[in-house]
């Protein structure tokens, strides 16, 4: 049976508690992973591994819940001089980010495009959306 949105939220919260050492009451939908929950870049790898493990039983063997490098956080975009100009994403950079991160709502970010504000895009809700999208493809 497919997981409900609540089930997915619960699993994501368990992973964040474990990976970031935060209390369950800190994990609110609009909490940012970096600013509010204290995630560092290596934590994204830990979170990816733990999400894969958590959702493994919910996916078909031939469609595993696999998070590729850069899928959750496409850091290479930020290091490409053609995609970032004067600390802000170019049109091309914005387009690539949207393509790589369909699980993210860019409405507020797009007005400013400042690279320094990218971390604010990663909220608990974003992560739940990301997992829900992946599960819709891989769930048995």
């Amino acid at each position: 049976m497919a997981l409900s949105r609540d089930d997915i939220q619960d699993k994501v919260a368990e992973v964040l508690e474990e990976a970031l050492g935060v209390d369950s009451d800190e994990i609110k939908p609009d909490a940012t992973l970096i600013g509010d929950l204290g995630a560092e870049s290596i934590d994204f790898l830990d979170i990816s591994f733990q999400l894969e493990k958590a959702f493994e039983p919910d996916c078909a063997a031939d469609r595993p819940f696999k998070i590729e490098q850069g899928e959750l956080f496409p850091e290479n975009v930020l290091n490409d001089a053609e995609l970032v100009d004067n600390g802000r994403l170019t049109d091309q950079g914005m387009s690539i980010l949207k393509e790589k991160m369909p699980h993210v709502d860019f409405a507020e970010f797009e007005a400013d495009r400042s690279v320094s504000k990218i971390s604010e895009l990663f909220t608990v809700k974003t992560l739940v959306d990301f997992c829900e999208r992946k599960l819709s493809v891989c769930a048995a």
Partner: protein
Amino acid sequence: MRWMWIDAITEYEPDKRLVAVKNVSLSEEHLHDHFAATEDRHAMPLMPNSLIVEGMAQTAGVLVGSINAFREKVVLAKIVRATIERDVLPGQSIRYDASIERLDDAGASTAGTIERLDHRHGEWEQIGRIDLIFSHIDNNMSGLEFPEHNFVFGENFRTLLRSAGMDSFCE
């Protein structure tokens, strides 16, 4: 020279598991400071837990590095969990048993148990768990440059691999 915190590799299942042992000796200088005698008590030489974590990092690091024949630079990125419930004293041995949990281009996660052998009783007992994350830094630190040669797995590690019969990695 890199400070080695494992003495020998005793079991190796390629891509899956690696086991290493360390014998703790009173001749190790740091034990005399950890902990030295005070006015109130005698000296209490104990293997520092931080170095037990390093021993697991070296054990699991060799396992992760071996998967790509030590071509990639593998560094410890995160201690996910470390619980050590018993002290290890001079004359006792430590066994590190590390297994791969997840692996991809960016890095790997490992799960490990720590056991202690008191030679007077002759039985291994589990005293803790250490789970780690390793990063393949060549794939993760875009924008930063590292030396071409593999500074992570140096000559001391090759000596360890040769003595474990893993010579093919040293050619």
